[in-house]
């Protein structure tokens, strides 16, 4: 029966016509004129409803990747110094080539450490800056600086994050937290300014902790919640669950849809 109703509603309805391109645009952009298709409007509204907390997972990993990407500059330094190492070994080879011309092959032998002891020592004295090993040294380490420079000490990204301090930082932080939470509930709410967000992240000991920090701060701290807190920055109701900002926010889509 219901199906039949539905069909007749769609197809045979007196005032209902087939969705045309204008209606499509109205529906897709949530134009009020799309009211002619209430079921569909509701569906689209639900698909675009404000985010839920469980959809906002994964920020820590994304942030870590973002910060790691920011630290790639040391890598490029390492690359250049590796290049420098390469250039350096080229210098050795060119020098060796010159020496070949001059000394008829002794220098080449010297570079690879294959001269008799005294000559090798001599070559080392001459070319030590260019990596000719002293006698006795194995021929291998022609280019020690390379390995050294690739092991750049990378500054720890966020080694010591400050511990969570829910203390009397109180009103302002709680205000930020409210904005954060309201924003999480409703994407139409103003997001925090980058500066505020940083403040909040600092208070929480990292941006990835903000949600947990705010939950703790706003629920678990009766001493703080008793303060009237006029300094609150929050332009939004502290009760996002009922969130119904007048004006542009959509009147809660729920009441007519229990099903």
């Amino acid at each position, binding site marked *: 029966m219901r199906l039949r109703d539905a069909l007749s509603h769609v197809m045979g309805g007196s005032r209902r016509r087939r969705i045309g391109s204008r209606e499509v645009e109205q529906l897709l952009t949530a134009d009020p004129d799309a009211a002619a298709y209430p079921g569909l409007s*509701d569906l689209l509204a639900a698909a675009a409803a404000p985010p839920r907390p469980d*959809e906002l997972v994964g920020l820590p990993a994304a942030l870590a990747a973002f910060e790691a990407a920011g630290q790639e500059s040391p890598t490029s330094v390492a690359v250049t110094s590796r290049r420098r190492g390469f250039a350096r070994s080229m210098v050795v080879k060119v020098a060796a080539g010159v020496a070949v011309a001059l000394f008829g092959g002794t220098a080449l032998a010297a570079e690879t450490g294959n001269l008799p002891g005294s000559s090798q020592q001599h070559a080392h004295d001459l070319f030590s800056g260019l990596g000719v090993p002293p006698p006795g040294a194995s021929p291998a380490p022609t280019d020690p600086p390379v390995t050294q420079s690739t092991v750049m000490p990378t500054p720890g990204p966020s080694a010591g994050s400050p511990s969570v301090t829910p203390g009397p930082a109180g009103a302002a932080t709680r205000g930020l937290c409210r904005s954060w939470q309201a924003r999480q509930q409703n994407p139409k709410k103003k997001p925090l300014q980058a500066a505020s967000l940083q403040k909040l992240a600092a208070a929480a000991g990292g941006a990835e902790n903000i949600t947990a920090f705010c939950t703790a701060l706003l629920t678990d701290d009766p001493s703080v919640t008793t303060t009237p807190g006029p300094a609150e920055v929050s332009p939004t109701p502290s009760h996002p669950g009922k969130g119904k900002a007048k004006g542009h926010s959509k009147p809660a889509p729920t009441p*007519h*849809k229990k099903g």
Partner: protein
Amino acid sequence: MDDEELASALSAAVRGDPGAFAALWQAMQPAVLRYLRVIVGEAAEDVASETWLQAARDLRRFSGAPPAFRVWLFTIARNRAIDEHRRARRRPEEPSELPDREVAAVQPDVAQDVIQKADTDWALSMIATLPKDQAEAVMLRVVAGLDVAQTAQVLGKRPGAVRIAAMRGLRRLAGHAEVQARRRAGGTSLDLNSPRPEGV
């Protein structure tokens, strides 16, 4: 987040500001995740995090305004989703009966959340029944808030094709018995004049 706010967060994030990056994430993640839920189902969360990993890596090289950023981000999401499809095809008949997401595992006490969640889940599952090109067009238009040209850019199609896909998708949804049935069951006062958030 309107374009002005998005623009300032975007430029700060491009300069490497983690707080701004978090703000971008917060603004865009829900839409990315819902889009992916429609096109890759259960794998959506994984694909969303892959999307953000790539965005995090490449964002400093991004230049452009917020609309271009949305296109950029959803293109990444779509490419990662295509990768996921390839992987899934290669996977030998894996039992895909993952347990349903635990409903209301987070903040279970707010009844309204649960209702709303059910609504959104239902809506996304309905859209997911559409042929893929239609589902994508509808999601990018409605949830991601892209216009026809931007949607076409993400999908690599002509705008005309996007328009048609969206129209067919909506017609099909409007005619879907469940949509009608649900609407009737839903009761009387339909606040049809409520504007939806036009994406993010």
